[in-house]
């Protein structure tokens, strides 16, 4: 079918692939995966995992296969609101995804299966919780074999988590460059020497890196006295990995915006008025999806998500996103997805043929964009001209709720304190002129007890 489009990141596994047809996503299950697919259903594993919300549910559909010679079945997985990537996750999101992967492996083993890959991108955040989206990850458990995805698990999860927890939380961004997880040799070099006294990290990172170097290019078939891993030993390994991951902890502190809401120049009256205005504007726009850019800990994002609107709450500060995610998890908020995204350098399209991971803009548009207390960071903090900001935001969504923060505001003054003010046109009129080519102003409301203004705009 000519209208079919294969999903860019789904080509490595010969068990099947994802494709879209008329804007609906399907997965072709290949004949080579037949035995595994049938066992997944017959063993009760599929039911157990979907009932618990650990695996994306799917329905088998009768439709033409894109590759009929290979096809066994076509399935339609439940649609995700948004696909995010590990370099956009905060510490606890990556940790929860790691623990889910280990739990899936343990549950699969009890039903005669295992997971054959441990890619972090197989996990997504759906309805507020991590979930496995690759229905073809399960295979008949070949008892006695070592876990084929052990290295992948360490590279995709353990290495970045250890670096984030014990070196610097911003090292999660190494996952942008190392698309198949962070090399263990590099991780071993970067981690503090004290981690050699941590049994979990000593074995799974440092000795693992040394073993990779020692046996590089050697066939394990030729290893004298060859051996394997019994099921009980496998459970022991998983238990050890789980305890190693559980012990890694990171507390949000010391980053730029962790205590923004305590330091802001808003009075209580101004904040209350701003909340009322944002709520009114959201009601007027009636979006089904909203991206709150520069959301901090997501106070305003929740005005949308609590109305049942799927809401992305992005911020460049991992501490703010961590706080937001922990609240999402603890209060079981199904419609909010906090992500670490730097708007000055948003996620690009990467991987094979630049198609494996999509850019932020490719994953849009949303119905509405919200940019509160953000414009001065982009225009003054990042030197992005107002017209460019308007152009970029118009690509992301049709409605725009945006706050204009004038130069007289103390937050703008802070940005100008150590630099020359070269922003002659940074005022209300300059702002409106810059946005006019892309947007029509629907409402303009000053926020009481402040010098700021809130705009509701609709793209032209």
């Amino acid at each position, binding site marked *: 079918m000519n209208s079919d489009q294969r999903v860019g990141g789904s080509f490595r596994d010969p068990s099947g692939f994802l494709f879209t047809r008329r804007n609906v996503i399907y997965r072709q299950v290949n004949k080579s995966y037949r035995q595994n697919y049938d066992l997944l259903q017959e063993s009760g594993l599929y039911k157990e995992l979907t009932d618990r919300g650990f695996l994306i549910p799917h329905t088998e559909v009768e439709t033409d296969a894109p590759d009929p010679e290979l096809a066994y079945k076509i399935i339609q997985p439940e649609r995700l609101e948004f696909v995010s990537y590990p370099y956009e996750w905060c510490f606890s999101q990556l940790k929860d995804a790691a623990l889910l992967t280990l739990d899936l492996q343990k549950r699969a083993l009890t039903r005669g299966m295992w997971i054959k890959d441990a890619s972090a991108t197989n996990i997504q955040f759906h309805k507020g919780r991590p979930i496995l989206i690759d229905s073809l990850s399960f295979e008949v458990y070949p008892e006695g074999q070592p876990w084929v995805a052990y*290295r992948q698990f360490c590279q995709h999860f353990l290495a970045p988590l250890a670096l984030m927890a014990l070196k610097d939380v911003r090292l999660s961004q190494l996952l942008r460059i190392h698309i198949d997880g962070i090399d263990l040799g590099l991780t071993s070099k970067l981690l503090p020497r004290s981690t050699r006294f941590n049994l979990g990290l000593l074995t799974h990172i440092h000795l693992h890196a040394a073993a990779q170097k020692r*046996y590089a290019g050697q066939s*394990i078939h030729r290893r004298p006295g060859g051996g*394997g891993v019994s099921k009980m030993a496998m459970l022991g390994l998983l238990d050890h990995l789980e305890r190693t991951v559980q012990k890694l902890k990171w507390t949000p502190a010391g980053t730029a915006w962790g205590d923004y809401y305590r330091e802001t120049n808003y009075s209580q009256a101004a904040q209350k008025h701003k909340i009322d205005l944002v709520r009114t504007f959201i009601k007027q726009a009636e979006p089904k999806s909203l991206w709150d850019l520069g959301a901090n800990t997501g106070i305003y994002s929740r005005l949308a998500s609590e109305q049942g609107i799927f809401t992305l709450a992005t911020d460049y500060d991992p501490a703010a996103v961590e706080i937001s995610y922990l609240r999402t998890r603890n209060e079981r908020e199904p419609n909010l997805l906090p992500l670490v995204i730097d708007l000055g350098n948003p996620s690009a399209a990467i991987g094979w043929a630049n198609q494996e991971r999509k850019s932020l803009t490719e994953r849009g548009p949303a119905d509405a964009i919200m940019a509160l207390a953000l414009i001065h960071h982009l225009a003054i903090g990042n030197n992005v001209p107002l017209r460019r900001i308007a152009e970029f935001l118009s690509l992301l969504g049709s409605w725009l709720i945006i706050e204009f923060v004038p130069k007289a505001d103390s937050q703008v003054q802070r940005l100008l304190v150590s630099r020359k003010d070269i922003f002659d046109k940074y005022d209300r009129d300059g702002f409106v002129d810059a946005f006019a080519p892309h947007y029509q102003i629907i409402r303009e409301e000053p926020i009481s007890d402040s010098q700021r203004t809130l705009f509701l705009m609709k793209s032209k």
Partner: protein
Amino acid sequence: MNKQPSGMSFLLYGILMLPVSVEHPYLDPGSGSFILQMIIAGLAGFGYIMRSQISNFFRRFRRSKKEEEKKDQSPNE
């Protein structure tokens, strides 16, 4: 999932090394990773079984203590 190994007979089984062959053409597991995993899994399996045995012992101990307490109380009821 929660089923615990029931006896020391599992110990031998837990650390038993079986012949290995790679039957997964999709992921390269890495020779070093495989060899290290076999060693760690053997040791971790041993530790896992020992911990399970100890927790089973204490569970049984607590259960029998509770049963004794119930028996002591029942004649007064």
